[in-house]
């Protein structure tokens, strides 16, 4: 990974001993393995479309850009991404952030909410938005692990 990169911000954060934190885009610089379980909602235009799981490799460049290669089982049907997907991410000083990408195969825009874990070894994610719809088709939780 360069998984040390994501840890650097956390160590600085802890070392200060106060409430202020020091996370930034540069805190995510390297590759994590991202596993997500998504459960279908009962509302919205894509309600009851079945569950999904994804297993991805997400590579952050420390400057707000991310590349994702992912495999997905969508309601029972497995596919592997033919080519890496490009996306963007944001990080707030407290470790809260967003990750946005457009799947070129489907054209879907996927917006994830995340927090960097206390020691900076992973990010925890959930679905925040999907194609700018009022309701996402699934709720999810995921973990992208830089080191374990």
């Amino acid at each position, binding site marked *: 990974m360069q998984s040390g990169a994501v840890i650097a911000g956390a160590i600085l954060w802890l070392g200060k001993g106060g409430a202020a934190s020091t996370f930034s885009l540069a805190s995510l610089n390297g590759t994590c393995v991202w596993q997500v379980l998504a459960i279908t909602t*009962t*509302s919205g235009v894509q309600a009851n479309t079945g569950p999904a799981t994804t297993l991805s490799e997400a590579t952050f460049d420390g400057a707000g850009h991310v590349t994702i290669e992912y495999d997905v089982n969508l309601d029972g049907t497995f596919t592997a991404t033919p080519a890496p997907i490009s996306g963007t991410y944001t990080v707030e000083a407290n470790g809260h952030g967003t990750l946005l990408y457009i799947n070129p195969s489907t054209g879907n825009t996927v917006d994830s909410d995340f927090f960097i874990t*206390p020691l900076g070894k992973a990010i925890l994610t959930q679905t925040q938005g999907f194609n700018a719809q009022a309701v996402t088709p699934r*709720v999810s939780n995921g973990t992208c692990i830089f080191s374990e």
Partner: protein
Amino acid sequence: MRRIILPGALLVLLLTSSGASSAAYSVASLNGTCLWDSLFYPTSSGIQNNAGPAAVLAPLSFDGAGHLSFTYDINLNGTFSSTANVRGTYTVDATGRGTLSYNSPATGKDLVFDFRISPHGHVIRTIFETYGGQPATPRVGTGVCTFAE
């Protein structure tokens, strides 16, 4: 920020290493911030059955004296929102089992979660216990709050 929960866990390790079997957790064992990740599945019973799933991400700050505060992000059956300045209380018994309670600003309902501190004190694992005093929770939830991954 984080003093982590390790004091209680270290005490447990010390007791274990000296051959004692009892633990010594208390509310003081939780002092710091953990990142809570919880996924909720809809139930098929109760007045809110089939209400859809939910997912929560929240940094929980424990004060070591039975109080907690947090901001949480939630995707509730497809609708995402953030809620700040939530306050609650928690208990911890000597074995590391506890409860976490707060009043939802969104619904006005009291939520209670059952939890257990992991053997090394790095995480607490949660399940949904009660919701608004109803006989059945609208969802079952499984979560982990990570102090040190």
